[in-house]
């Protein structure tokens, strides 16, 4: 009978195995830091509600992780920032107008059901924040689709509801979208800085790109997931997005919705995307294809969340099929 310490050495874990001198905590807090610009922009555009909703999410996420782990007499892992990150990502994915119980329910589902029941960080099959959001979208379809127009005044207390650019594109077409935003350049500029209706943290593409650049610089994310993801979305928008083939406008699709947030911060999640490079490229392409399928043909205006979740289902399978051959291994003979 091996002792506890010896037994722990034999625990098999999912990849990544080699982490260098990085720790989970350092990476997670860096990702949190990388989301700071997007958070600041959301406060700028949506006012105190951004702080309120995101804060509630983070609080509920951290608390539920702590309560679960202490009640099971396990060491609490709230210090590594992963629960904080889940809460923050969920908050940035919610519309600004939700009542207080929505973030709390979402965080509890994300942390307890999606992460801890499956064995905690490193074992979760799905991205917790996205499951939280999908759960909320199915449970509170009305509350989760009320969007505020950005006010760009910090103290805006009352706001005007409006549809998201993708919603307008889906329901009323591109002509109406142009009418609202002026001409093409104005539309692109608004989408780029984030002056549009949408989830709290997804609107400002520039802020998200700054955060993503920081993660690239630190080497925490690689191009293998986000670049194929974005390229596929752009390509499909160009080919199928317009009236005829090859007339679509890829820029609108690339800059709107939760694409930037999803591609750089959620699809790249180490745990839920394949750990083999080739598999990650397939994962990214799959995300892009499903996103555009849902955006162009599906029942929802936005498909990034479901695309990533669906590809999360497939990532163990992708990993399996790209398993590198063991050195010197001989193909198994048929018995």
């Amino acid at each position, binding site marked *: 009978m091996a002792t506890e310490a010896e037994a722990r050495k034999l*625990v*098999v*874990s*999912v990849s990544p195995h080699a982490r260098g001198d990085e720790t989970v905590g350092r990476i997670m807090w860096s990702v949190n830091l990388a989301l700071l610009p997007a958070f600041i922009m959301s406060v700028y555009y949506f006012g105190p509600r951004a702080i309120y909703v995101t804060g509630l999410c983070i609080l509920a996420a951290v608390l539920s992780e702590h309560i679960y782990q202490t009640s*099971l007499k396990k060491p609490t892992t709230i210090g590594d920032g992963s629960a904080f990150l889940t809460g923050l990502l969920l908050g940035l994915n919610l519309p600004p107008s939700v009542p207080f119980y929505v973030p709390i329910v979402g965080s509890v589902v994300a942390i307890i*059901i*999606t992460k*801890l*029941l*499956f*064995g*905690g960080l490193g*074992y979760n*099959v*799905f991205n917790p924040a996205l*499951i939280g959001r*999908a*759960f909320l979208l*199915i449970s509170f379809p009305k509350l989760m689709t009320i969007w505020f127009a950005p006010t760009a005044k910090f103290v805006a207390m009352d706001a005007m509801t409006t549809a998201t650019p993708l919603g307008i594109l889906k329901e009323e077409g591109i002509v109406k979208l142009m009418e609202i935003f002026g001409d093409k350049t104005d539309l692109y500029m608004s989408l780029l800085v984030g002056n549009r209706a949408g989830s709290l943290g997804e609107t400002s593409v520039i802020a998200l790109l700054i955060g993503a650049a920081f993660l690239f610089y630190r080497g925490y994310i690689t191009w293998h997931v986000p670049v194929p993801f974005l390229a596929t979305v752009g390509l499909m928008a160009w080919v199928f997005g317009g009236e005829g083939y090859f007339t679509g406008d890829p820029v609108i699709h690339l800059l709107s919705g939760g694409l930037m947030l999803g591609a750089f911060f959620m699809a790249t999640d180490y745990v839920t995307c394949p750990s083999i490079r080739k598999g990650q490229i397939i994962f990214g392409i799959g995300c892009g294809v*499903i996103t555009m*399928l*849902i955006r162009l*043909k*599906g*029942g*929802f205006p936005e*498909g990034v*969340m*479901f*695309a990533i*979740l*669906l590809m*999360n*289902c*497939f990532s*163990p*399978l992708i990993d*399996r099929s790209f398993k590198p051959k063991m050195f010197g291994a001989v193909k198994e003979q048929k018995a």
Partner: protein
Amino acid sequence: MGIDWVKLFELVVSSALINNFVFTMFLGLCIFFGVSKKMETAVGMSITFLMVMVVSAALSWIVYQLIMVPLDLGFLKIIVFIGIVAAFVQSADIIMKKVSPVLYYKLGVYLALITTNCIIIAVPLHNAGEHYTFLESIAFAIGSGLGFGLALIIMASIREKLEVADVPAPFRGLPISFILAGLIALAFTGFSGLITL
């Protein structure tokens, strides 16, 4: 009469992904949880299931449209379809044992299980209810079989990974699999509305 390939293609895709029997209607769960523990059994089951599905849908369609509809015996369809499926599976079992013992030892175990699967009976009933043509029935059966296989294979790949996870004791095995199936179903709602037939 020309063949409507688009409709057939839509039927396959819609029954495989959008209206996946396992993840949107929660049918066939006994086999789904029973054989999705290992990839090998999941693949074997998927192949056997697809074959049985297509043949039994075809047989049911022939019996229903050519015998039962003219004689106005539509109310008997549940019993008749169960009989057709059971008879077909049993005879396939016996014939396979005689003709191809290798195949029998590979897939024979799954055959007996399939007789009691609800998707096998749901597909002929759906075909009869929607008045599909013969080709449409086959397309629907192929889609359903592929969808079930897809569900099994996804589930097996994830469950093999979960074997090593630190799942809390009361949730190990079936309970976590049910939660997992629920979460996958949540992801599959993203496909809703993609194709409306």
